[in-house]
């Protein structure tokens, strides 16, 4: 049996189920308790678990991220919510220098089972400082795992896996899509970290994407289907470790690849995928790999500039035509 749930409700179910299951799991962040979450992801959790386990913090990202790291080193399983990953930049020292390196520095004596989660990516006309993506930043760091997914059912299963995982994990959600609905199974299930999902099967071109750009890629695929082009759409779900097997197998079938990635183009996820595919599917490619990223600029406020900046179906179709020499 499945029911329709919004992304925020699926994420909340994951946290509630894991907190009921394991006393060492707690949630900490700005506005998570009394305000019920800036985006209502944690709505009602304070009522069930009380202020010991659902903890409002002051606006001090570096401080509370570090408290989470210390608590994780000392046997707890914190979920640290950032109101947005843009604010988590203040906490990068703790995520990169400590959470990611605790196991290595201590030669395995101390682990750091912590989940850092929050929305990433553009969310309308929020301008330069509130619109960035962070998958490639965090995925660059050995020691971390990075999840980026907006499908409600998969997000729930991935978050549950992340909370149980003994390694530090960064989860990228989406302000725009907390209300995005999907079928979510009843009952207990997990989704494995590090496995992509094929959202739509196709034969002519592979579109690889993640987070909310998966929906844009699917929109482009629907559009192209009307013209008889069959696009396969892969949702990475996890960025690190990257499931290149699923990508390579798809490219072996379609012989063409367009990566749709909301990050900036330079040294990002799209570049990594292009490398993997030229290395492991070189003989299967009928055209150079191409990509549709956000523009290599900061994101300004005006609506015309937002449209120009972001990937969209039209840009994706243009890229598909390019790799199809159409």
């Amino acid at each position, binding site marked *: 049996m499945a029911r329709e749930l919004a992304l925020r409700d699926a994420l909340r179910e994951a946290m509630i189920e894991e907190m009921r299951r394991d006393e060492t799991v707690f949630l900490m962040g700005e506005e998570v308790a009394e305000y019920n979450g800036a985006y209502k992801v944690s709505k009602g959790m304070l009522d069930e678990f009380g202020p010991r386990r659902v903890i409002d913090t002051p606006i001090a990202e570096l401080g509370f991220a*570090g408290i989470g790291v210390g608590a994780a080193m000392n046997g707890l399983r914190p979920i640290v919510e950032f109101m947005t990953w843009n604010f988590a930049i203040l906490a990068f020292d703790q995520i990169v220098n400590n959470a990611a390196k605790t196991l290595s520095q201590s030669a395995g004596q101390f682990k750091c089972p912590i989940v850092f989660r929050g929305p990433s990516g553009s969310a309308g006309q929020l301008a330069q400082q509130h619109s960035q993506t962070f998958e490639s930043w965090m995925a660059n760091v050995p020691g971390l795992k990075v999840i980026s997914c907006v499908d409600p059912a998969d997000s729930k299963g991935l978050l549950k896996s992340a909370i149980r995982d003994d390694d530090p994990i960064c989860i990228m959600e989406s302000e725009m899509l907390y209300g995005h609905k999907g079928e979510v199974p009843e009952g207990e299930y997990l989704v494995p970290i590090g496995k992509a999902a094929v959202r739509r099967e196709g034969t002519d071109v592979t579109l690889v994407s993640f987070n909310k750009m998966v929906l844009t890629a699917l929109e482009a695929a629907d559009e192209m289907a009307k013209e008889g082009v069959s696009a396969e759409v892969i949702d990475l779900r996890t960025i690190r470790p990257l499931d290149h097997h699923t990508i390579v197998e798809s490219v072996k079938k379609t012989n063409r690849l367009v990566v749709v990635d909301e990050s900036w183009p330079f040294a990002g996820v799209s570049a990594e995928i292009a490398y993997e595919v030229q290395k492991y599917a070189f003989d299967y490619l009928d055209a150079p790999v191409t990509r549709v990223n956000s523009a290599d600029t900061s994101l300004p406020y005006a609506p015309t500039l937002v449209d120009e900046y972001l990937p969209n179906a039209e840009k994706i179709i243009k890229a598909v035509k390019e790799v199809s020499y159409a």
Partner: protein
Amino acid sequence: MDTAVEKKKRGRKKANQYSKETYLEWYELMLRIRRFEERALMMYGQQKVRGFCHVYIGQEALAAGIESAIRKEDAIVTAYRQHGIALGRGVTSNEAMAELFGKETGIVKGKGGSMHFFSAENRYFGGNGIVGAQIPIGTGIAFAEQYRGTDNLCVTMFGDGAARQGALYESFNMAMSWKLPVLYIVENNGYAMGTSVKRTSNVTELYKIGSAFDMPSEVVDGMTPESVHEAITKAAEHIRAGKGPYFLEIRTYRYKGHSVSDPAKYRTKEEVKEYMDRDPVKQTEAKILKEGIATEEEIKEIKAKIKKEIDEAVKFAEESDYPDASELYTDNYVQKDYPFIRD
């Protein structure tokens, strides 16, 4: 000597309240640290020890006074000038020296070096290399103790340089707000690398930082184990009673430069001498003999024992192997089959 510490010393009870056992433990630990650090510097000179190396010479009374005043189950986290604290926690000279040599028998298998010793067994949460980053971590370690309902505390140590990091203010704020069992200790040795405390802020008496958070704060003489022990005992009692954090500014001095590459030209010979005259190891030895706490024979025995221990540690480190190249891929993830990119 500064007036804040002077005032404090005058107020202290004269009567000797510590046992012979405590004195000999303090002396032995301080001597172990002193000789270990001297040998580490020598080994650095011979290029057996590489990387950054910050020694604890001059600050030994802190390690001694802290360990005698807290429990083994309490946690400690500190910065990168950390060999002495780790030895105080129970890391052995062999494990420590082998780590400096980068050998697989080191306390972290040759993966951390001078700045990063860790010992879960001894509740030692490490040497942290980023100035001040251990302040929120120690706060979080204390958070976990409170969460589990223990009466353990976390001693969170940092230098005077770290007292200017934002992480401190964020941590102090949350620790007071949530009444966490954390004992903050700033080891004020007067210099953040080459910059004196006076040049880093308008507020040069660091203990006063606590008052912005209504955190009980005191200044302590860090040149004797007695003064450190006494202050920590009082603070620990406050913390274990559930009254929240405590902040001690312990004034100490490092005889050597910031790291082995620092000739320390930013301070005068007179200033160094002033502190060396109050050397914690010599002072304690003199006191033990003068007050008849132990005999010269007993002191000689401790000296011989430590000399042998450090000689053996160097031999142990020399004879141990470097980690196998395959160790590069261990301890990055708890997940055993993590698919590293290897091309």
